[in-house]
């Protein structure tokens, strides 16, 4: 067993703080408290957002606009359930990775399953962790009635499921 030092304990506290920050962010997103307030208090000014087919932005204002568009028009209901957290802390910077499973309702009232991988960046600002990078890579965004083989991405959302159907012997 190696010696425990102060950095080990600080890292544990930071990992815990970052996990709670992100889970709080998800609950508030799903409750639709308003993207302005949420992004303003949780993100750095230079936050980068990239969710592939849903858009890419730089800076708080652009992120707020994109989030408004998504949550007011494209995803009327969401439940962001995150799993498999891996947080790496390096002083006042950190990264976090999660899988997410997100039952949602689209703008035209369709139930969809979204699954994918979040990779986030964080910076400690005045002692508090803030989100500096927010990326999501979709595995699928499928119609609940169809599933990820028949229709991995609903109409209007470009994407492909990463597997090789040609390898299957029928």
């Amino acid at each position: 067993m190696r010696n425990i030092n102060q950095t080990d304990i600080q890292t544990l506290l930071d990992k815990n703080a970052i996990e709670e920050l992100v889970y709080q962010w998800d609950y508030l997103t799903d409750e639709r408290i308003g993207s302005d307030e949420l992004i303003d208090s949780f993100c750095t000014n230079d936050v980068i957002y990239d969710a592939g087919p849903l858009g890419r932005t730089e800076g708080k204002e652009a992120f707020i606009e994109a989030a408004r568009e998504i949550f007011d028009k494209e995803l009327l209901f969401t439940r962001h359930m995150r799993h498999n957290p891996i947080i790496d802390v390096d002083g006042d910077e950190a990264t976090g990775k999660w899988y997410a499973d997100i039952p949602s309702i689209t703008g035209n009232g369709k139930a969809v399953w979204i699954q994918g991988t979040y990779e986030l960046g964080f910076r400690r600002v005045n002692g508090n962790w803030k989100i500096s990078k927010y990326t999501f890579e979709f595995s699928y965004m499928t119609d609940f009635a169809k599933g990820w083989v028949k229709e991995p991405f609903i109409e209007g959302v470009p994407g492909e499921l990463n597997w090789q159907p040609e390898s299957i012997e029928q």
Partner: protein
Amino acid sequence: MNQEMSEQIDKKKISTADIQKLLDKVAIKELWYNNCYLIDQGEVDSVMETFTEDAVMNTGAFGNAEGRDAIREMLEELLAEELHFTRHMVHMPLIEIDGDKAIGKWYLDCPSIAGNGEAVWTQGTYKHTFRRKNGEWKIDKFTFEASYVTPYDKGWAKERFIVENNG
């Protein structure tokens, strides 16, 4: 650990063993989460580095294997023939540490594509044992018990298993 810090911890009756346990729990969780990401990317070589040489794998209908080479073979075959797409999402970690040994338990929810190209939901329980070797945690025994492996279109009441399951 410096004297001042030890004194502070002792005042609160937190021992260094308690802190070590927290660090070990985090290390084991991260080991397993990282393996889930690696398996889903088909990176079996990297996954195998986290197993002990004499590790045992017991997954009921998905197969059983003893020793790292046999486990590698089994995983490669599974990913090539029976699971074309997987997203291993694991929840509710319970980790028990006992010195250089540990047990970890998780639920799994795994959207997948089966060998016949059908979308399936897999749900089940992992119960792994770990051993600390040269300061690093390794998987000693890998156990998975499936609750269901059901076609997406049917669900776990109509067709609990798409394949015969002995577990």
